[in-house]
């Protein structure tokens, strides 16, 4: 067994175990962590196939962005595990059937001659990142741009779903930092000029002190 085969089996073992744990782990956060591990080892296997661009993009997009948000959501869920597990045996036959069909389909594809013939051929010379880039911006420019537009539609849809009228809608607490930065003392502080008044009557000193206090209080509060 040469070195490459050793690395492959090492990664493959981790990949299979991690994938199994994704569906068997009791705690959903642990399941997500195993899924991340599975993605990471899958990227390692792709590296062995000399598909370094795909491997790195898998790590960057799925582990670096998608799974972070996934984890973000799962961590904030307050899951009742018993409730999730209810009806496991009732849905089992249907699930098993679907799983079986998927296994059959994959088996049919993998035994097809296309997969028999295509042994991995290392790319000559150029790095495959450069070649992928060249192909994407020449032969497949339109499909590539269509995919980009599709993603843009998804972004717009997400914004549209959460948009509630922006800064102008009632109850919005949005603040404008530019206004905050430009604020002057005059906007926050109103200095009130009041004539000095003195009660002529046999006023109690306490009352006088009280009105004075109110005046200063007002200037400060404004």
């Amino acid at each position, binding site marked *: 067994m*040469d*070195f490459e085969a050793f690395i492959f089996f090492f990664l493959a073992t981790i990949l299979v175990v991690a994938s199994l744990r994704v569906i068997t782990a009791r*705690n959903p*956060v*642990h399941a997500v*962590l195993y899924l*991340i591990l599975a993605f990471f080892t899958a990227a390692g296997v792709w590296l062995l196939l000399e598909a*370094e*661009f795909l491997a*790195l*993009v898998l*790590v*960057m997009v799925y*582990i*670096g*962005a998608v799974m*972070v*948000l996934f*984890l*973000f959501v799962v*961590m904030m869920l307050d899951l009742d595990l018993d409730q999730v597990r209810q009806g496991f045996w009732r849905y089992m036959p249907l699930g098993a059937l679907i799983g079986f069909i998927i296994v059959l389909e994959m088996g049919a594809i993998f035994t097809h001659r296309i997969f028999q013939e295509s042994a991995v051929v290392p790319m000559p010379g150029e*790095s495959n*990142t*450069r070649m992928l880039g060249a192909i994407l911006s020449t032969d497949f420019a339109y499909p590539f741009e269509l995919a980009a537009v599709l993603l843009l539609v998804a972004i717009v849809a997400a914004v549209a779903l959460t948009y509630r009228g922006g800064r102008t809608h009632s109850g919005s607490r949005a*603040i404008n*930092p530019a206004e905050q930065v430009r604020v002057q003392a005059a906007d926050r502080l109103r200095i009130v000029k009041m004539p000095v008044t003195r009660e002529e009557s046999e006023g109690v000193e306490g009352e006088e002190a009280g009105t004075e206090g109110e005046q200063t209080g007002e200037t400060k509060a404004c």
Partner: protein
Amino acid sequence: MEETIAQFGTQWFGAAWPSLWLVIWTLVKIVAIVAPLLLAVAYLTYFERKVIGFMQVRMGPNRVGPLGLLQPIADGLKLLFKEIIFPSWADKKVFVIAPMLAFAPALAVWAVVPFNDALVLANIDASLLYILAISSMSVYGVVLAGWSSNSKYAFLGAMRAAAQIVSYEIAMGFALIVVLMISGSLNLTDIVHAQQKGWFADRGLAFLSWNWLPLLPLFVVYFVSGVAETNRAPFDVAEGESEIVAGFHVDYSGMAFAVFFLAEYTEMILVAVLTSLLFLGGWSAPFGGLPDSAWWLVGKTCFMLFFFLWFRATFPRYRYDHIMRLGWKVFIPLTVVWIFVVGIWMLSPWNIWK
């Protein structure tokens, strides 16, 4: 020397020796990178305390050893001997793994960082992509630490960190796209080589040919995003002491805390090195006639690290919504516009990067 080792190895291990030797030799190289790196991290903390001390008209550490030079060692030993306390109802496994997940990517990225023309552990074609991919994983350490601590403060810190790091990664990625557009390569060595030629470089003023001048806005965006990515002040809301005690690592003690600390400083050095490689010409000398050397890279890295400390001593902490506004509404549109500006520039007759 090498032949003797090879002979000896084949004698003992037979045919498996070449691959075994590859593993051993790579491990030796890894140690040769990581050991000085950790030493640099230790003395970066000393440097930080001294710099901030002088900026605030204090002395900084000056008790342990001459000029306080043994302070980082003393701090390390103290943390090493402290007990690691597990909060009640903490998820223990994740609690232990989280600091490792923060530290491992910070170290793994160094595999592709070139120190000069030949001195690099793995000179792969897509090294910039590798750096983006691996450094995007560093967020997990913070997020999982916050979740597994079973504490509200830690959890809030983790949430803030996750949103912040994901947001600034986009601006950072866009800034890097422009750099690779004008260099025509994803390889860091090639990117540095691309900066070594140009109109100014031919006239002995090499430092004006580096990417920082034509890409000045992106240089600023990249470095500021780097500060935000590493959760450093003024973007350190993930640990904002005034609001959420110490954020994601509030429940960590001893060595587990120290590992987070190491991860943060390793990433700081990494951002500084990458800024030097991508925008400041890497190991090339600033003036014609001077020899190119890895020491230039070290000097530029120290210069960029000084900015980190300077920022920390100067700016008050950003409010959280201001951080998000800066990332999404200022940096991302700015970088997208600059991709077009540089793209049109490259197609025009005034293209300077041929």
